């Protein structure tokens, strides 16, 4: 295999050049995969744990995610999305596929009352160091009704389907679907309006 040495400088700085590592993976460089894993797996693992809610599932999903990253590294286009966004999209898609294959989450510990709220954006004024997109998303989420915002955030962060949200929030499925749908349209209009 093409295990060319990856310069440490690529990895040692605070923001490792993930794009370069992904490109090296596309060329079959196992060392690049290892370094990419070390640089990003804690973040990806956290996303998977949040969605899948069990250690075992998240660990298995982490393996599969990096196998997919390896196998599809040649599809990554740096100009189209940030490396972390691409990595997380693969992890999230895999996690959702895992959830789809499971008929229920009956053996999955659910804790709707806490976790999602923990990651709900703060609606206090954004701190100066926040990037513009963060501010925009916060602002636009704030404009949604509370239950609609809750549906959007919990769907994204915890991987809940509309059916599950309907059950957990004790609201009709049609209402939940409508909240999500209208929220997305409103978010798009809001985000574009601020842009």
């Amino acid at each position, binding site marked *: 295999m093409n295990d060319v040495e990856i310069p440490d400088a690529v990895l040692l700085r605070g923001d490792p050049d993930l794009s370069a590592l992904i490109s090296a993976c596309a060329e079959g460089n196992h060392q690049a995969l290892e370094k990419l894993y070390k640089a990003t797996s804690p973040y990806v693992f956290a996303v998977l744990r949040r969605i899948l809610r069990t250690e075992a599932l998240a660990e298995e999903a982490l393996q599969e995610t990096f196998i997919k990253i390896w196998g599809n590294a040649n*599809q990554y286009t740096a100009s189209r999305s940030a490396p972390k966004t691409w990595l997380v999209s693969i992890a999230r898609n895999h996690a959702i596929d895992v959830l789809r294959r499971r008929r229920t989450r009956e053996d999955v510990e659910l804790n709707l009352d806490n976790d999602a709220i923990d990651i709900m954006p703060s609606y206090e004024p954004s701190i100066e160091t926040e990037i513009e997109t963060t501010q925009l998303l916060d602002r636009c989420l704030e404009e949604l009704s509370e239950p609609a915002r809750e549906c959007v955030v919990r*769907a994204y962060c915890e991987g809940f*389907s509309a059916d599950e949200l309907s059950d957990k929030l004790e609201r009709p499925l049609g209402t939940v679907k409508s909240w*999500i749908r209208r929220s997305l349209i409103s978010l798009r209009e809001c985000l574009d309006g601020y842009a």
Partner: protein
Amino acid sequence: MDTPDEQWWDAQAGEFVLGTLRGAERDVFQKILATDSDVQRRVEYWQQRFAHLDEQIESVLPPDYILPLIIERVRNGDSHDAPVANNTAFNTVSDTASQQAPSTPASKVVDTANAAPEHSSNVEVMPQREERSHKRSRSSRRAIRTWKTVSAFAVAATVALAALLVQTLNQPIPVTDTSLKVVSVVQSEEMDALWVLTTQSDSAVLQAVALAPPPIDSTQSYQLWMVKPDDAGVSSVGLLPLDVGETKQLTLQIPTEQAQLFAVSLEPAGGSQEPGPSGPVLFTGAITAVTDNP
């Protein structure tokens, strides 16, 4: 974001990223996503926007045993998602997005006989989709129903949706030549999907797939028209297929850019003998551009 259809695609892409698009809907969306640059752009938009919600998460160190397993697997050539040939440049990977469907039949007869010359008579059609202000939720509901109708065909593996997916996925020529230009779902007043119409960016051929056209007797035909904006008349496209799953290729007499929507009239067998529809206009389909490709 100018039309309800664009809003629908945006919302569909948003639901895909959120993860609330599930089941057959997600499968079908992924198949379209694999090759459609416009849908890819919409998904990327939402991925980038929602990525902020991931940034607030606290990293968790995974167990040490995982990395050696991954390295061992890749060294052994175990990659479930082997790199897909250059049929997509999209940045999303999923279990189903790269699945290949059966290849398309190599040839189809292009029906030009039924494509009457362009006419200038006006046509009354059912209420259209221009009143946007208060129709968003209604449009979304309609679109969802349409999507679900189409998805149901995918679940059933009907020839109809297979034809649509073949159109979007499986022609073994470069993606720049196979990009969908327009998709239209002709619907009934009850919002049932009756035909799917697709065109390619580099072709005047329109492919019509019958999903669930209402039965008619042998003395009648459904004729497809392109309706021009500003009461500028209609252009016949041809007679639509009648059997569920039947595919027919028709030739467009004018570019889709010059039309406002598709309309279907009920005509005597063989089509209207007049410059425009001679029978009632029963169904319409919005013209939705689905690609940015030049």
